[in-house]
């Protein structure tokens, strides 16, 4: 290295190039600001991630690991090997479906009311009495023109369709 002694001495003079006075303090201030904003930004995502991780760490507890893996594998096999659902086949077949002039947009409140009505009707039935007409009145009647629905859906008490 002796042959480069002079050049090394020259290069070492670069040690005298220094940042402006107060640079470190200013840098610290802006770094803290950035750190705080990153922490705030990440806190929501971090919280969600932590919950997901803790959930899976419980589910994937060694004690339950085999059971979890088996259930997951069976579910996956079931999905993979399952033939097309009959409902879909029916829907694709014009003969087994019927055209409605109206189709239902399901309102959850209406569904609950229908279930309650259905249960009340059953109570009347058990008592050997006829249910009043308002109890049996179907609630879900928001038809859409030209919709095809499977025939198998037509006889559900809580999802009565009006033509």
């Amino acid at each position: 290295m002796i042959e480069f002694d002079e050049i090394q001495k020259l290069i070492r003079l670069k040690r005298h190039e220094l940042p402006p006075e107060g640079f470190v303090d200013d840098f610290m201030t802006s770094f803290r600001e950035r750190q705080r904003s990153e922490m705030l930004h990440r806190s929501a995502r971090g919280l969600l991630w932590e919950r997901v991780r803790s959930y899976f760490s419980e589910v994937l507890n060694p004690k339950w690991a085999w059971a979890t893996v088996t259930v997951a594998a069976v579910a996956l096999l079931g999905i993979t090997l399952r033939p097309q659902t009959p409902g879909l086949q029916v829907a694709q077949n014009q003969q087994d479906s019927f055209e409605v002039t109206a189709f239902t947009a399901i309102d959850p409140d209406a569904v609950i009311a229908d279930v309650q009505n259905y249960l009340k009707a059953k109570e009347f039935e058990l008592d050997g009495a006829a249910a009043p007409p308002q109890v049996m009145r179907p609630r879900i009647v928001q038809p859409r023109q030209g919709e095809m629905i499977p025939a198998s859906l037509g006889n559900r008490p809580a999802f009565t369709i009006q033509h």
Partner: protein
Amino acid sequence: MSDRPRNPDPDQELITRSQEGDTRAFDDLVRKYTPKLYGMVYNMTSNREDTADLLQDIFAKAYRSLKRFQGMSTFYTWIYSISVNMTLNFLKKRGRYTKLSLDDVDNGIQNDPDFIKVTSGDSPLREVNIHELQKRLNEAMMKLSEDHRTVVTLYDIQGLQHSDISKILGVSEGTVRSRLFYAHRQLQNYLEDFRK
């Protein structure tokens, strides 16, 4: 980098506290290493604004990665490795040519024995203005390849040992010495007129 340090890491307490979420402890680490890392990044980029931005990114990354730091190296070599890698990535993206934006040279240079020596007597530098010298040195540095500039920065300017540089760069000490040799030879050619 994979060898556990023989001596206890002087930063261990601050590291542990930072890993436990104490941001003040991490602030202390930032305050301690900012001047050193600033010098490294600045001499690699020759641009003040880039240096300040890059330094923010370096400490932000260090903070995010701190939980994974297991003390297989000292914090010093770890943070230097992050800095060198991020600086090299930055330089690749920035491209070769850029406008220099240089720091001020402190008054201490006037009393530096090396400066006195090279600017006195028959030295060809005796008429050279400090800022002109600074500009020439930076231009010569920027002509070096990034690998060569890194070893010159770490060894000649920052005064790190060959062994530390090899750990930081993840190369053998022989490679460090070889890079230094070729870098010095090139610098000698670029600054030939200063030696006549």
